[in-house]
Each structure stands twice: as structure tokens, then as C-alpha cells.
């Protein structure tokens, strides 16, 4: 009896794999989407902190001001593309996104330095691109401090002090962090598993094989397992694919325990496969399954902390994120990769994910069986 069950599930899984590898669309979902997403998010984050388009508004036009600009541009972080002649011009460049970084050196900068009284330069950053903004400010900060130290060394006391006043325009908080590639693992697992599960079930209904399967001795539970195990396997494959790609191409560090990655992925998959099954009970055609998947996927990503910090969201949305499995898995996966967190820190996330997962998969299994009957 148990052996028969095992054999039938096995045959369902094998059949599913044959079908996936014969279908161009399915193959694209399995192989292309993960790599494409990793590339997009990986490059968008790591490349942008070099060659930051920069404007320098130098009113002082002194040896010292030119020296500061030279030091700023030397490492290749900042490309000085514009030298505006007025504050309005500078503002216009930022407004039109011609530049994301601006340095303003006012008249009297060199004179103040020579008289050894505190002086200031202004740094402006386009905060809409918060990742680049925070990195650019950090670079500028370090370069200007170094400049200050070097000046103090050549000119004996009293010590020179340059007061750096930084302000990010449009988004003064700059809270987002740039660990996007590990986050891509979470997104890829979600997207591929949702799409494959919902579409594979709906396709059976569309072509009439679901009806045929229902008169075979195949039990509903076997059908559910046969329709989720293949996509769980593929999700694990994609997880490894993105991890290897992230480590090799983007030098993503793995600071935590690698063993926790498959464990947390498995718990995460409970929710995702469950949601895929629910979508398959709602959608009548594969197109509807596709649209329903994205209807869930987009808000799930937006309300996960992947791109926008949860603390910045209105309170109602913050509460909604507690229902989002992606939220917990992102904390786990970023903790594993970047912070080197272990079970002792991540267990609350794991527990929350497990509770949501068990609830969702139970609900979906019940609903799925009911739809069959």
C-alpha cells in the first residue's frame, strides 16, 4: 500500500520533469529567470558605486579647492562631468538626474584654511537611489577627512578643522542596505515555485487530464505531492544556482552556516508551494495562473523589506508584512550570508516561517481536495 503510493508519486514526479524539459516556457522559468534576476540585481548594486556622475561647483578656485577635487576624483569613484557656474545650475543638474553627487566649495575655503579657522564644504547626494547615495557619501566623507588630516600634518597647530555637512536630498534617511543578491535567492524561489506549481496544475485541468487522473486510483494527497515535489526540487536547484552565481560572479560572502540554507529553504517552500496550490484552485487558465501569480508576487516583494525598509512603511503595511513569508526568509538569508548569523539568532524567523508554512499548506491542501470533489 505504502509502496504503491510511493510508486505513484514517483511516476507523477518523473512525468512532470519530462514535461518541464520539453516545454520552452517552463525551461525559461527554471533556468533563465534566476540568472536574469541575479544579473539585474547584482550588477545594478555593485557597479553603480563606481563612476558616480558628479558636479563640482568650485567658487573658491584656489590651490586647496583644486587639490580636494583632485583627491575626490583620483580613485575613480567620482566622475566630474559638470562644473556649473551657479547654485541654480547645480540644483537643475540634480533635478534632471544628470548627476547623483555634487561638491560645493564656497568662497573663503582656502582663506579659512590658511587662517586656521573652521570652514566647510557642501556635499549633495541624490537620495532617490539610496544605495548609491549612502556609498557616495561614505567615500566623500573618508576622502575629505584624509585631506583634513594631511593638511594638519603639514601645518602645525592649531589643528585645522573642516566641518563636513552632508545632506541627502529627496530621501534623508538612507536606510536601505545593499544586500540584494542574497535577496534574489528568496525572490527566485518564490517566483519559480509559484509559477510552476500553479501553471502545472491548471494545465492539467485545461487539457482535461485532471479529470482523467481523478478516476485513477491516484489519491488526492498523492496528486498534491506529485504536483509539488518536482517544483520543490527545482526550487532547491535554483537556490544553489543563484548562490553559486552570486559567490562566483558577485563575490557575495557566505559568513554563516551553509547547512541552514537548505533547511530554511525547505521551511520557506511550505508557504510558497501552498500559495501556488491556492492559485491553481482559483485560476481557470494558464494565463490566469500567470497573472494571479504576479498579483501575489509584486506586493509580496514590495512588502518584504527587499527594496524598501519595513520601518519606513505606514503602520498598517508593517503589520501586513508579518504575514509575508518572504519577509522572514529575507532576514534569514541575509543573516546567513552577510552577518554570519546562526540558529541562535535566526530561530524566531524560522519559527514564524514554519507556522505560516504549515497553516498555508494545510489550507491549500484542503481547498485543493475540495475543488477536486
Amino acid at each position, binding site marked *: 500500500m505504502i509502496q*504503491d503510493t510511493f*510508486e*505513484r508519486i514517483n*511516476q*507523477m514526479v518523473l*512525468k512532470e520533469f*519530462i*514535461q518541464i524539459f*520539453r*516545454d520552452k516556457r517552463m525551461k525559461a522559468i527554471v533556468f533563465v529567470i534566476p540568472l536574469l534576476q541575479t544579473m539585474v540585481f547584482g550588477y545594478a548594486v555593485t557597479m553603480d558605486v563606481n563612476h558616480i556622475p558628479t558636479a563640482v561647483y568650485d567658487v573658491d578656485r584656489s590651490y586647496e579647492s583644486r587639490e580636494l577635487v583632485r583627491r575626490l576624483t583620483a580613485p575613480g569613484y567620482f566622475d566630474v562631468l559638470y562644473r556649473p557656474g551657479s547654485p541654480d545650475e547645480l540644483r537643475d543638474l540634480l533635478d534632471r538626474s544628470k548627476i547623483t553627487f555634487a561638491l560645493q566649495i564656497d568662497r573663503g575655503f582656502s582663506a579659512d584654511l590658511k587662517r586656521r579657522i573652521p570652514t566647510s564644504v557642501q556635499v549633495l547626494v541624490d537620495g532617490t537611489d539610496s544605495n548609491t547615495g549612502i556609498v557616495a557619501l561614505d567615500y566623500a566623507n573618508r576622502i575629505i577627512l584624509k585631506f583634513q588630516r594631511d593638511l594638519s600634518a603639514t601645518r602645525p597647530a592649531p589643528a585645522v578643522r573642516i566641518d563636513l555637512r552632508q545632506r541627502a536630498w529627496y530621501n534623508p534617511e538612507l536606510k536601505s542596505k545593499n544586500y540584494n543578491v542574497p535577496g534574489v535567492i528568496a525572490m527566485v524561489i518564490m517566483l519559480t515555485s509559484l509559477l510552476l506549481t500553479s501553471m502545472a496544475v491548471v494545465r492539467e485541468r485545461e*487539457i*482535461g*487530464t485532471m*479529470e*482523467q*487522473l*481523478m*478516476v*485513477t*486510483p*491516484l*489519491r488526492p494527497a498523492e496528486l498534491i505531492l506529485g504536483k509539488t515535489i518536482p517544483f520543490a526540487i527545482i526550487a532547491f536547484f535554483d537556490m544553489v544556482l543563484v548562490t553559486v552565481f552570486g559567490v562566483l560572479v558577485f563575490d557575495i560572502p557566505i559568513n554563516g552556516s551553509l547547512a541552514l540554507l537548505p533547511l530554511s529553504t525547505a521551511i520557506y517552500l511550505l508557504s510558497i508551494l501552498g500559495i501556488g496550490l491556492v492559485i491553481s484552485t482559483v485560476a481557470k487558465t494558464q494565463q490566469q495562473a500567470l497573472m494571479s501569480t504576479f498579483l501575489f508576487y509584486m506586493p509580496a516583494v514590495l512588502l518584504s523589506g527587499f527594496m524598501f525598509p519595513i520601518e519606513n512603511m505606514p503602520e498598517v503595511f508593517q503589520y501586513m508584512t508579518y504575514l509575508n513569508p518572504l519577509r522572514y526568509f529575507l532576514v534569514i538569508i541575509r543573516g546567513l550570508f552577510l552577518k554570519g548569523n546562526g540558529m541562535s539568532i535566526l530561530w524566531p524567523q524560522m519559527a514564524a516561517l514554519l507556522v505560516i508554512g504549515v497553516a498555508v499548506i494545510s489550507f491549500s491542501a484542503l481547498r485543493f481536495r475540495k475543488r477536486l*470533489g
Partner: protein
Amino acid sequence: MTLPPAIIATGLSRSFGSIHAVNKLDLAIDRGELYGLVGPDGAGKTTTMRLLTGILEPTSGEAWVAGFPVRTEAERIKEKIGYMSQRFGLYEDLTVMENILFYADIYEVARSVRKARIERLLGFSNLTPFVDRLAGKLSGGMKQKLGLACALVHTPEILFLDEPTNGVDPVSRRDFWRILYDLLREGVTIVLSTSYLDEAERCTRIGLMHKGTIIIEDRPKNVRSSLAMPMMEVWTDKVRTAGEIVRTVEGVSSVSVYGDRLHIGLKHKGAASAVLVMLEREGIAVQDYREILPSLEDVFITMVEK
């Protein structure tokens, strides 16, 4: 050992909201019958099939298939029956052989008998040369035969076919019926639904379905003669004009056109001569005429109108 009757249904009903798809249906089908559920689209044929195969729960009433009640022992029934839904239920991206093997696996057909059985199924359905072809690349008739082969892979006792020849060319339909008669000789009970009345004629027994219930049930010949209505068939050149004229004759109850013939339903036998006299007076040449038994279509239309 005597086997329980193939199918018994008492007061079987299924509603979808306010629609009574199947309404207090009674049915008794013996082993070895080729039973046809006949009726137009929407009569409740498919719902009946789905109730009897255990896919759908009845709203009320009960049915026994191969001796097992559908409500509580649907899983036992599934081992005894084969079912071919309207769309054949094939995986179009799998080959002919992969489709058959998949169903053989799901039905747990023992490895020892599997090879011989599949060869036989492929042989009688003439699919042997196409084993490696994708099911999606088969013609409609071949898909239908593959669907049948898949439904037969576990040698079911009772075979359910839901409009099996819908959208299949006439030659393939004839082949298909040859296969059904072979199965019947082997003792398989077959229940099929059809809206083609010429196919209904080939069943051993038929039930005419209308609004979710069976309005008349017997051998096709008996069903036709049960309509105690004399009918005549008239061959003529101008069927349409002739039809208009005949309709006005007293004692004529129905007129329908079949190609170059008219089927005329009569209230009494004597009306036949009145029809011929009228046609001659109007100058319509009658090539031939004869008394006929009403066709199933005639019966069906008359029954539904009652």
C-alpha cells in the same frame, strides 16, 4: 460466482446552485451491456458520467458501480472502471508510449503483464507505428484511440465513454465502434454518452435523457416502435415545396426533411393516401414512398415536446 450488476442508480441527483443537472435518475445496467445515454447538450449526460465514476458527489440519491456505493467507496470503484472524458485527457507533450506507460504506472499494472497488454492495446488501436510520436501531433481519431487505450490499460470491467466520437472523422468513428464491439465480446460493460442518434442505434440499450432524467429507456428498436405513430417516407424532387404542401394536409402531425426525402408523421394510417393525393393535385412528382418506423430523432422530438 455471480457478479453484482454493473450499475444501479436510485434517485440520483446533482444540483449546481439552482440548476438540477441530474434530477432523480434511476438506472439499472447489466454486465455485458452497451448502454447509451442519449440526449442533446445540457441534458445531464456528462454530469451522470461524473457521478457514476465517483468524480462528483451526488446531492441526493445513491448509485452502485460494480457493487460499490459511489458515495463511500469511490476508491474501490476506480480500480474497476475505465473512463474517457470528452477531451480524451492525454498529455500532448508526452509520446504515445509515455502516455500509456504513465497510466499503466498510476494503475499499478504489474510489470509481468504490462508488455503484452500494451502491445495488444497498440495493436487493436493501430497505434503501433506511432509509439514515439507526441500525442499532440496525432489526428483527432488517433488521439481518441490513444485515450481509449489509456482507459483500458488496467483491463476495467466497466468502461465509461463521454461523447467519445465528438469531433472525430467518420472513418475513425467506424474503427472506434469496431473496437467497442470487440470489447463487448470480451465481456466489458460499456456506458457511453452521445448526441449522435445514429450511434445510439448501435447500442444494446439506450436511455433518452432530457432535463437531467431518463424519459424513455429500451432497446433502440423498441424505443422507436414505442412511439405508436405511423410514419411514411416520401422521395421527391422538390422536397421543400412538397413539405409545405404536406403540412397543410389533415391527419399529418409532423414533417421533417432528410435530404431528398420527407419523413411524415401521421395521426392515423389512412392519412397516407390523403398525402399522396394532395401532392399529385399540386403537380409534385413522387418517385417512391413507403411506410417506415420512426427514427430515434423523431421519437426524441416527439417525447420532448410532450
